[in-house]
Every structure is written in structure tokens, then in C-alpha cells.
């Protein structure tokens, strides 16, 4: 019975998401797109934190870097092909992921947390202090990429409804891809690393390589979200790579429940809605967010998917 209810529940939510643009206000459609993009980002972090046991505090580096790649590549006066730009952003971010991953994965536990944070902040200071990409002001993306596929369908990315559907499709695809990764033999090894790395190593797996591949995949998925975010707002700035973005994403992973594919969906939506509510109440809403984070981390370490309703019935 619970399984049927659960299916019905998620089916209704998906239907509501599909129909949202028909009655939603412009502001809400934009906000929903923002949530969907964030879900993609948080899911990529969940691949590291929840499924492999790597607590990264520098994941925003890939989110922001991808946006910067788009901003630097975009010509000033003409639009770039969407798919070319997306591929370029993902690949460049993947290269950064290889470099960062190769370094930080040499450490474990608390050292891993510290070195990911330090490398992420290195990128922040690099973008903030040098003139290479607009310094502390960031960069504008003057013309959004042009989504046309051999001239037979076209999306206008400046149109909030079009953009919303793009974000929705992307989020669904990313969730399916992550599900496929988790259930593949590769994902099984990651699960082994998460539970007991020594034992997985003893079974003959080169855990460093597996972790590195996972790190790079996560960075590339984060690149997708960063790319979309840059397209949505038409601007990138150093704050995108800052560690508050990483910290918030980590919070969303935990709030939803780490190591569950739907965890990031629930966690991201909840925290973003709650924060939006806090912002209406007071100028000092960060205070309330901080209190909420402390309480959740202390009393709900297993997140919202820990509640029976979201669990697969036996």
C-alpha cells in the first residue's frame, strides 16, 4: 500500500512540475528553475558524499568554474551553439576535476575536507584577485547560447518557460544517469569504498582510481548545473565558487538524506523554500538558516528520507 501511495505521490509531483508554467507567476517559474539547477548540483555532491563517503567542501569550484568557461568562451556579439558550449564547459571542468581530484584524493578524512576547501578557495582568490575574468565583479554573458538543432527546433533561453523545461529535463536526465551509475558494477565498488575502503582494496580494487573517476564524474555533473546557472542569470561572479555554496549544498545533501537518489531533491527543495520564507521574515535570515542547520545536523543526521514515507516499502 505504501509503495503505491509513494508512486502516486511522486507521479503527482512530476505532473505538477510539468504543468507549473501554465499557472505559475514568472517569479515562481524562475525560482523553480533555480531549485532544479541546484538539485543537479547537490546530486553531484551526493555522489561523492553519500555514495562514496568523500566529504568535499570545495565542490562549488566546479559549479562556478563551468560558468566561467561559458562566460570566457561566449563571443561578445553573437550567440554560441548551446551544445558546443555545454560540452566545452563540461570537458574543461572535467580537466579541473582531474587535477583537483588527483591532489585531494591523496588525503583522507578530515584532511580531505580541509584540502578540498583550500583548493576551492584558491580558485576563488584566483578569480577574485586577477583581471583574467573580471575580478571581483565577475563577467556578463552578453548573448545566451543558441539552442537549435539543425534548425528544426529552437528554445529561447531568455524565455523563463523555455528555460524551466530545459532545467527540468536536465534534472531528470541527471537523476537517471546517477541512478545508472549507482547500480552499475562501478557504483558497487564505490559503495564498497564508502563502507570500508581497506576491505575494498584488499579485494583487489585500486580504490584511488575509482575515487578519482567518481570525483571527475561528480565535477562534470556539477559543471552542468553551473553552466545552466550561468545561462539563467547571464552573469558569473567569484561568489559562485565560494565555500558558502559548497557548505549549503552539503547541508542540502544531509537534510534530504545522504546516499539516497531522491535525497538531494527533497533536501534542496526544502532548504530553498525554507530560506525563501526566512528571507521574507527578516533581513538577518542567515541566522535562522544557521540555527536550522545546527538543529538538523544534531537531531536529524539521517535526513528527511529517513522518514518512513519516503522509504521503499518492504
Amino acid at each position, binding site marked *: 500500500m505504501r509503495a503505491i501511495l509513494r508512486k502516486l505521490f511522486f507521479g503527482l509531483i512530476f505532473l505538477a512540475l510539468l504543468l507549473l508554467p501554465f499557472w505559475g507567476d514568472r517569479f515562481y517559474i524562475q525560482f523553480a528553475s533555480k531549485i532544479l539547477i541546484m538539485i543537479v548540483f547537490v546530486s553531484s555532491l551526493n555522489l561523492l558524499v553519500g555514495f562514496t563517503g568523500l566529504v568535499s567542501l570545495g565542490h562549488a569550484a566546479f559549479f562556478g568554474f563551468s560558468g566561467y568557461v561559458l562566460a570566457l568562451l561566449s563571443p561578445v556579439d553573437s550567440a554560441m551553439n548551446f551544445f558546443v558550449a555545454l560540452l566545452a564547459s563540461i570537458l574543461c571542468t572535467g580537466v579541473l576535476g582531474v587535477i583537483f581530484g588527483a591532489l585531494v584524493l591523496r588525503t583522507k578524512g578530515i584532511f580531505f575536507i580541509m584540502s578540498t576547501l*583550500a583548493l576551492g578557495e584558491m580558485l576563488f582568490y584566483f578569480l577574485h584577485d586577477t583581471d583574467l575574468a573580471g575580478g571581483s565583479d565577475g563577467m556578463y554573458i552578453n548573448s545566451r547560447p543558441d539552442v537549435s538543432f539543425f534548425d528544426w527546433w529552437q528554445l529561447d533561453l531568455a524565455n523563463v518557460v523555455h528555460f524551466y523545461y530545459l532545467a527540468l529535463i536536465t534534472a531528470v536526465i541527471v537523476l537517471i544517469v546517477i541512478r545508472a551509475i549507482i547500480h552499475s558494477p562501478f557504483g558497487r565498488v564505490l559503495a564498497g569504498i564508502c563502507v570500508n575502503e581497506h576491505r575494498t582494496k584488499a579485494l583487489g580494487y585500486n580504490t584511488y582510481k575509482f575515487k578519482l573517476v567518481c570525483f571527475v564524474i561528480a565535477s562534470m555533473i556539477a559543471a552542468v548545473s553551473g553552466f545552466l546557472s550561468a545561462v539563467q542569470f547571464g552573469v558569473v561572479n567569484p561568489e559562485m565558487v565560494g565555500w558558502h555554496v559548497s*557548505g549549503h549544498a552539503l547541508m542540502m545533501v544531509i537534510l534530504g538524506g545522504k546516499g539516497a537518489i531522491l535525497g538531494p531533491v527533497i533536501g534542496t527543495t526544502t532548504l530553498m523554500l525554507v530560506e525563501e520564507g526566512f528571507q521574507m521574515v527578516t533581513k538577518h535570515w542567515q541566522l535562522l538558516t544557521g540555527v*536550522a542547520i545546527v538543529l538538523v545536523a544534531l537531531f536529524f543526521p539521517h535526513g528527511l528520507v529517513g522518514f518512513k514515507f519516503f522509504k521503499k516499502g518492504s
Partner: protein
Amino acid sequence: MDAFAIFIQAMNGIQYGLLLFLVASGLTLIFGIMGVINIAHGSFYMIGAYLAWSLMGWLENFWFGLFVGVAAAFLLGLVLEWMFIRFLYDRDHLQQVLVTYGLILIFSELRSVIWGDDVHSVAIPALLDGSIQLTENLAYPIYRLWLSGVCVVIAILMYFGIQHTRLGMMIRAGESDREMTKALGINIGLVYRFIFALGVSLAAFSGMISAPISSVFPGMGSQVLIVSFVVVVIGGLGSIKGAMVAALLVGLIDTFGKVMSLDIFGINIFPEMAGMSIFALMALILIFRPQGIFGKEY
């Protein structure tokens, strides 16, 4: 640069390094002994600096203000340990990161409520307000010398306290085997509370004494936190000796990076890229000695 300028920069680098040591040693003490990663450590540094600014304003006496500030920070540490940190000893690092991340948001917002978002400066106390003339146009401020001296004294006291006192013995015992220490009748919870409060006061004290030579601004906490993480990664976690060596190294490299100018292929990479130099050092350490210079193999 001539010899005197290099000498002055080296002194600045050492002084910055010693200050970093004070902050990083609190971090490494709390992790090494209690096993808790405290990313709110930078907030205590920031709170210290703001406390210095308002206490010096009210009390109009640097020394009294310093005393009151450190006492307040110690008290804050005791309360925080009692309210939050003591629940984290048996939890994994992820939860420790999140709770202390929440504390960062709370403190930075409280700072905004209490002190506002402006940049302030604190006057150097009259007693130390002067400088030693080295050559005709080069002088070294006495306050910076005093600051370095204080850091060295605290480092020595810390070493002595941990290695040669009864309390230090309890701390070392708790570090190596918590249950056994408890069984011997030592109130380990109280020892941990003391250590945490000590760490908080060290960070706040560093913030207070650095306030007169740098400005007091909202983002100072996260800045110092990142650099202390770099120090800890380079030096090896839980190692006070490592923290000292790494802090001096980072202090010198950062200071010289900011005053040097070096052209590679016609691109001026200093001083704009100076912020990057300490991270480059960290990357090197991660490649060749991932456990840090003085860290234990794991």
C-alpha cells in the same frame, strides 16, 4: 630589494607566521585531542577582533580590554562545548562540519546585528606605539615585535603545559585512549571542555592582538580559517610542531609573494598571484607528502 628591506619583510613574514600558528594550533589541538573538526574556528578570530574594537572603545585601555576579551572568549568556548560540541565526539566528520558550519552562519549574522558590516580599525596601545629606526628611511614598528614575542611565549607555554604539567598529562592520556583515561577516574569531559575553550580563546586572542595592525572586517574569519587549514594540511594534523613550522613557512612565502615581482613569459605573476603561492605549496605537499611534514602515516 636591498638587505634591510628583505630583513623587514622577513620579520613581517615571521610575525604573520607566528600569528597563524596561534590560530592553527587551536584548530589542531581541538582536532588532535578531541577528534572534532571545527570549521567555525575562523569565526572566533573574527569575534576576537570585533571584541577588541568595541572593548578598546569602552574601556579605553588595551591591556584591560585584552584581558576581558580573552575571558569572554573562554566563557563562550565553555558554553559552546556544553551546548553543541560535546554531542559531536562520536559523530562522523560530516556532522561536525555541518554543525560548525551552522555556527559560522550564526556568528557572522550576529556580528552583523551587533557590530554592523563596516570596516573598523583599532589604535595601537600608546606603550607600544613607536618604531625602531633601522636606517634613515626604514623603521620597524615596536608593536609587531611585541606581537611576535607574545606568540613565541604562548607557544613555549603551550609546549610546557602539555608536556610537563598534570593537566597536560591528562590531555595526552585522553588523546591516546579516551575510555582508559575515563576508567582511571579522570573527568575527560571536563578536560575536553577546557581544551575547546582554550582553542576558542587562542583564536579570539589572535584576532584581538592582530586588530591594531590589520583592519577589522566581516570576512576576516573565513580568510584566516582557509589559511590555517593550509597550515594544518602542510604541517600535519594534530602536530603542534608541524603547525609551527608550516605556519612560519606559509607566513614567509605569503609575505614575500606579495612584495616580489617576477615575470614569466612577459606576464607579471606577482603580486596578483601571490594569494596562490601558499596553495601551490600545499599542492606540492599533497603530492610528495600527503600526511603533512610532521604528520603520522595513515
